[in-house]
């Protein structure tokens, strides 16, 4: 075996030593040295999308988080009922930063927490009656809502409620779509199944319900961009600048109408493959719409992606893409000239969800940084197969990492920057390791697109080079 791979394997073995045997064997299959060549074979194959072991402190969430928090939550003109006890909606309220335009409480409901607030009687007698009533009350108090989605919490599936029947009746009674989503938190093993379930409900209840009259050959959908800190807007701006017409954002700043008309597009552009590949595959099979993955983090990947997207269109678009690249190259170079001297050679450890564990690597590399470890909260095999080529041989790849492992790998690999989530953030602050939240952009953003890269570079610089880190007096 090659040296770098061997060295990383040794680190992995050391870290996993403390586990009880069964759990150690299990975790060994989820943490591997990277082998871009594929020569290492099954030894380096990362297992994924398997149930977390109990008690290890997984960072994963649940199907509800994947549906209400990720896919449905950003759809702005629909009211999403957190159907069940009060907590789930409380903890996911106004926290994901999927920006949207509109007037909250009037025609936009993203930043609201709407719940049936289950009580004991609902568990005993079922929640269907009250669910119907809540739909009526929503229609009464929020007359401009274009639809209602029912985001099921754990008890709903356990007590055997028939939310589908309620949804059907209410759709007829109220004249707006009422969409049942079976995203109870115990289903599946992570957020991932929630994405799939949410996409299926969109497929069954929304997609293709409307069409547009004035189709053009440049119509595209921007899929799998949740508009964190305005990401989707920065991406949309680029696509429009190259002459494409984005007819639907899916689902950052999305309206129900956009999702309904999505099958009118010529091409699906997908950023977060993990959470939205389902709907792209469906639209390909059902409507013959091709789809293409792209990456709008950092200039290198953006230039590649613009050319890749343009290749699906005529010469006009191809020329526009080149013009766009030409226009922004000096601006991007300026960003790199400004920040690279301050960031060159710094190492990064990432642990995020969706697309980011691989998609942001190029942006770091543009700034002279190296991602030495990366992993997915809820990735599948196809995510890891897309990751190997992006990382160096012997880099650490971890799936569903535990709190213990992250801390230990940090001690051994000593990255200059760690990018993960809120649950990890403050442990890193205590360790004195510069840290950025890479789910919410740490309340900054956008990071996508030509407008996002300068912000990304600024943020990484401010965090790595902030003088306060040096004031930490370590205990001897």
């Amino acid at each position, binding site marked *: 075996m090659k040296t770098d791979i061997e060295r990383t394997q040794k680190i992995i073995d050391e870290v996993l030593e403390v586990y009880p045997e069964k759990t150690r064997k299990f975790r060994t299959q989820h943490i591997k040295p990277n082998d871009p060549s594929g020569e290492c074979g099954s030894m380096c194959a990362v297992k994924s999308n398997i149930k977390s*072991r109990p008690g290890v402190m997984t960072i994963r969430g649940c199907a509800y988080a994947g549906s209400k928090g990720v896919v449905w939550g950003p759809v702005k003109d629909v009211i999403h009922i957190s159907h069940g006890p009060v907590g789930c909606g409380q903890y996911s309220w106004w926290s994901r930063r999927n920006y949207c335009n*509109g007037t909250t*409480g009037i025609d936009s409901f993203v930043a609201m927490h709407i719940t049936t607030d*289950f009580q004991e009687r609902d568990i005993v007698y079922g929640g269907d009656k009250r669910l119907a009533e809540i739909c009526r009350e929503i229609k009464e108090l929020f007359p401009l809502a274009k639809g209602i989605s029912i985001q099921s919490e754990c008890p709903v599936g356990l007590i055997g409620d028939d939310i589908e029947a309620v949804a059907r009746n209410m759709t007829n009674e109220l004249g707006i779509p009422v969409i049942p989503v079976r995203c109870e938190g115990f*289903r599946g093993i992570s957020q991932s199944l929630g994405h799939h379930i949410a996409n299926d409900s969109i497929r069954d209840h929304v997609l293709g319900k409307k069409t547009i009259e004035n189709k053009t050959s440049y119509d595209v959908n921007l899929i799998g961009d949740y508009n964190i800190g305005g990401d989707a807007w920065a991406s949309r701006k680029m696509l429009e600048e190259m002459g494409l017409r984005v007819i639907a954002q899916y689902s950052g700043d999305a309206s129900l109408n956009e999702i309904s008309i999505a099958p009118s597009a010529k091409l699906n552009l997908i950023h977060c493959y993990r959470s939205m590949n389902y709907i792209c595959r469906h639209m390909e099979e059902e409507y013959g719409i091709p789809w293409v993955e792209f990456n709008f983090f950092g200039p290198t990947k953006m230039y590649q992606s613009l050319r890749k997207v343009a290749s699906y269109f005529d010469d006009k678009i191809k020329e526009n893409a080149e013009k766009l690249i030409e226009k922004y190259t000096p601006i991007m170079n300026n960003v790199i000239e400004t920040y690279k001297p301050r960031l060159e050679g710094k190492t990064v450890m990432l642990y995020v969800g969706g697309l980011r564990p691989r998609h942001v690597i190029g942006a770091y590399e543009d700034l002279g940084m190296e991602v030495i470890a990366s992993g997915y909260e809820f990735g599948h095999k196809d995510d890891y197969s897309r990751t190997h080529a992006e990382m160096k041989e012997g880099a650490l790849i971890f799936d569903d990492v535990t709190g213990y492992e992250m801390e230990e790998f940090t001690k051994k690999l000593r990255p200059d920057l760690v990018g993960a989530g809120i649950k990890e953030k403050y442990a890193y602050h205590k360790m004195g390791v510069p840290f950025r939240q890479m789910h919410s952009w740490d309340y900054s953003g956008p990071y996508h697109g030509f407008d996002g890269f300068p912000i990304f570079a600024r943020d990484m610089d401010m965090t790595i080079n902030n003088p306060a880190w040096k004031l930490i007096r370590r205990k001897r």
Partner: protein
Amino acid sequence: MIVRDHNELFKSPEYTELFEKKKEFESPCSSVDVANVQEWTKTEEYKDKNFARQVLVVNPAKACQPLGAMLCATGFENTLNFVQGAQGCCAYFRSHLSRHFKEPVAAVSSSMTEDAAVFGGLNNMLEGLENAYALYKPDMMAVSTTCMAEVIGDDLNNFIKEAKIKNKIPEDLATPFAHTPSFVGSHLTGYDNMMKGILLYMGKDGYKSPSGKINIIPGFETYTGNIREIKHLLNLMGVQHTVLADTSDVMDAPNNGTYKMYPGGTPLKDAKDAINARATVALQKYSSIKTAEFISEVWKQKFEAVPYPIGIKNTDAFLDTISKLTGKPIPQEIEDERGRAVDAMVDSHAYLHGKRVAMVGDPDLLLGLISFLMEVGAEPVHIVCTNGDKFFNEEASVLLSENFFGRNAKVYIRKDMWHLRSLMFTEPVDLLIGNSYTKFLWKDTQTPLVRIGFPLFDRHHLHRYPIIGYNGVINLVNWTVNTVLDEMDRKSMYSPSFDAIR
């Protein structure tokens, strides 16, 4: 290099144009419709509809039981929270507490999925306890439940016994537990249940000999500064005490370059000794209901629930209670603190007197704030308590009715912030007090907001400052009067009233 992030970027003409063009595909409501509905939501008619709803809950100010259980258990030394149920809940609790305290919050879950829904959660718990103990080496694992485990009826007591019989965890590992169904009560109930569970476990060897100490139960306390303030006062009085669930060092740990998963908390030996104390004093009645019963009836220990010591009178009452229980006088140093707090109130009274206030929060917090506001001549008007019960309603109403400054107040239990929105439009107020989520009310109604409560996500460090004790009074006066003055400046900016001295 000038970098424009979301705060500036999207105001630029190129983006406003983009937003405008996007509407072609959004099929948006007309701006007339939006404006009309917006105005309609401010009316009496809308308020009546809003208050007529029976089921719909919009922007409630309450969380679920296991969150409270988790906060409680983090306040004990070397204690790991173990959440029996679905893993997403555990992730949510950790995120929620971290966003408020800006601190790491460690907790594990038994990651129950569909198979556990069918067969029960025993296997998950056995493996979970074994793994968690091997990795995180706690001295105590406090087990709470999510609604999944409750609905399928997992029996924590038997499960934990079995884990010990099967040597998954050592026999002597402390394993208190609490059933914390999310569909009963709120985060306060969960705190209470877990506190009772821990005390039951810690006191299982029974009463030994009197320690002479006083136990303090802070309750669902989200101000680390409050716990430090209580300890400060008791130390000045020379009262030996144990804070039960002392989250102050856990949720406000020093940065010394190492991450400690258990950076403080009530020492377990002190928790075990709690049964031998002279008395237990709870600072939040509504998060100590079952614990109160347990201490009085099972431990046969004197139990006092004092009013949450917010404001002068409540702090006086707390200190008097402690003084009576221990026979220790209140020292001059504390008298001086009182004097400074009253001085601050007198200095600022002119800007607070007669100010109409709306507020939303937990019951004990509201009772404390009502008392404080009336002491400085402000007038509580709308008091919304999503997790308030009839006892709270009665208590708050009596407090208000006995005071001139409470004459315009109305208490709303089991109502939410969307109800409050209607109230603030139909009967406007001068000041709003609430958590970070109330900023939507600040925006919609243009009422100046003082952030007090939980969670506080969008301002930093507020939780480090006490709101209880005399020092807490100074912070409250500071935040309220300066919010009023900031607003006064904003409103008088283009008038002669824009004064340099206030």
